[in-house]
């Protein structure tokens, strides 16, 4: 979510709240600093970039609760054009 959309009147405040919550909870659940998160995200992107073509910084990570444990989810936008190198 970028700075502009936070202040745009068009974005519903409930959507902003949900996005912010997802980010906050991922950090709470990981129990790591924002810096470490960014670093992990960056390194993951580097590894993926060896195999796929996609824009840097587009990996997003979250921890999802599944029963009594958490599942680490990393999403990156895969397009037709992101062919396997």
């Amino acid at each position, binding site marked *: 979510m970028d700075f502009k959309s936070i202040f745009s009147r068009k974005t519903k405040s409930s959507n902003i709240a949900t996005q912010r919550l997802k980010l906050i909870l991922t950090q709470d659940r990981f129990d790591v600093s924002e810096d470490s998160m960014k670093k992990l995200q960056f390194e993951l992107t580097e590894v993926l970039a060896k195999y796929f073509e996609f824009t840097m910084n587009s990996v997003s990570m979250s921890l999802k609760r599944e029963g*009594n444990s958490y599942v680490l989810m990393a999403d990156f936008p895969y397009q037709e054009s992101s062919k396997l190198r």
Partner: protein
Amino acid sequence: MGKVIVITSGKGGVGKTTSTANIGTALALLGKTVVIIDADVGLRNLDVVMGLESRVVFTSMDVIEKKCDLEKALVKDRRVEDLMLLAASQRNRKDDIKPEQMQDICERLKVEYDFVLIDSPAGIEQGFHNAAAGAEEAIIITTPDVSAIRDADRIIGLLQNQDINPISLILNRLSPTLVKKGNMISKNDVLDILNIDLLGIVPEDEGVIASTNRGVPLVHNDGSPGAEAYMRIARRMTGQRVPIPEMREDNFFSNILNWFSRK
């Protein structure tokens, strides 16, 4: 053997005491035997919400200090059969009680009663740990806002580490009108984020404040949306299959309908 359930939230003021009073009363109205325990030592108010403050003679502290028997410390409700309150001491501090002592009280009560509900204090300190110590199950109360949901998530993690299971959720103070306008986080988003079972949704209801003023739990007031929601929650807790209705929006048309159907 009864069930011991802690009602907790992390964040303060989201409706733990209101929910304990109403669910306890609703379960008793359904014919169950119930004890509600105020675990908010030093800031007790479950007795006030129940309208029982003038009847409280002994507290859980007196039981722990062996100044009176457990049975004698239980205050009988004024309106419903088989509903008892164990009040908290107002003069003590939360760390004057140890988890083992709460556990012991719960163990003894669950032999005699179908449901033992514990009203937890806010926070994640000693008071919360004491409240959860004797519980096997938990009900998390949250309101649809960022900080309450964040705290709920933290509490769920702590309870899971203590093998408390099941843990279910009550979403309190939901306003369908605000959700529709896009100014309130929706039920589906809350569930997607917290990923635990939904026990019920309680709408924002002015009746809650009036009922607290009177010291009469809302569920005695048939027909109010909050009362119906708490009755459905209690039915689910007794094992009945009661679907969670989609909330109707509070609009001109439904207000008129309500007005005509009022008794």
